[in-house]
């Protein structure tokens, strides 16, 4: 298999993996909001740690294209001009959505009786931004491959 074919195969795999990672992030978000507030138990600390790792991995994968164990030449091919343009577009939309969610939460906190903890606020902003960027990147990459 040539490098171009291998890059194609890995790019297709990435378009399948990224939405799944995003789904995991949203599921973690849902369980975080449905768990009772209060003192952190050991299981909550594990849960929080898992979310931090997952969010960091997703951010790193989005920024670098992933496949860190592959040869640099192949990674450059996977991360070529089109991919960089798709990533820029995805990150732009992710940033806009994260800011919109932040503004929305600020409005809710300011003008309603709803009370969110700082952790819940951060969770919501990060999840919205990353999930949007992941889905947009996967969709653009899929369109480019077909």
């Amino acid at each position, binding site marked *: 298999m040539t490098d*171009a074919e291998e890059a194609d195969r890995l790019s297709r795999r990435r378009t399948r993996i990224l939405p799944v990672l995003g789904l995991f992030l949203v599921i973690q978000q849902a369980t975080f909001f449905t768990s009772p507030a209060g003192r952190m138990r050991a299981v909550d600390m594990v849960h929080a740690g898992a979310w931090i790792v997952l969010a960091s991995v997703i951010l790193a994968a989005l920024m670098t294209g992933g496949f860190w164990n592959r040869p640099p030449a192949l990674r450059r091919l996977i991360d070529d001009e089109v991919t960089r343009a798709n990533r820029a577009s995805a990150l732009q939309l992710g940033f806009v959505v994260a800011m919109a969610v932040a503004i929305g939460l600020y409005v809710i906190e300011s003008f309603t009786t709803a009370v969110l903890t700082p952790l819940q606020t951060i969770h919501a902003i990060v999840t919205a931004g990353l999930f949007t960027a992941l889905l947009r990147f996967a969709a653009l990459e899929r369109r480019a491959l077909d």
Partner: protein
Amino acid sequence: MTDRLENRVREVREAKGLTQAQLAELIGVSRKTVNTVENGVFVPSTVIALKLAQALGQSVEALFSLPGD
């Protein structure tokens, strides 16, 4: 200013009997790049346009043109 670019990459590539993957290999990009350029989804950089022109034995102006030109 328009950001659309018409191109004859597919036509010239097929006339030369090359697949997208073969052309991609020749110029050191992924097949995805060739595909998106051919479909007009992606406007390539000058470097990619020059590499495509070189690989296909055409001038850049023969491969790419602004709509209406």
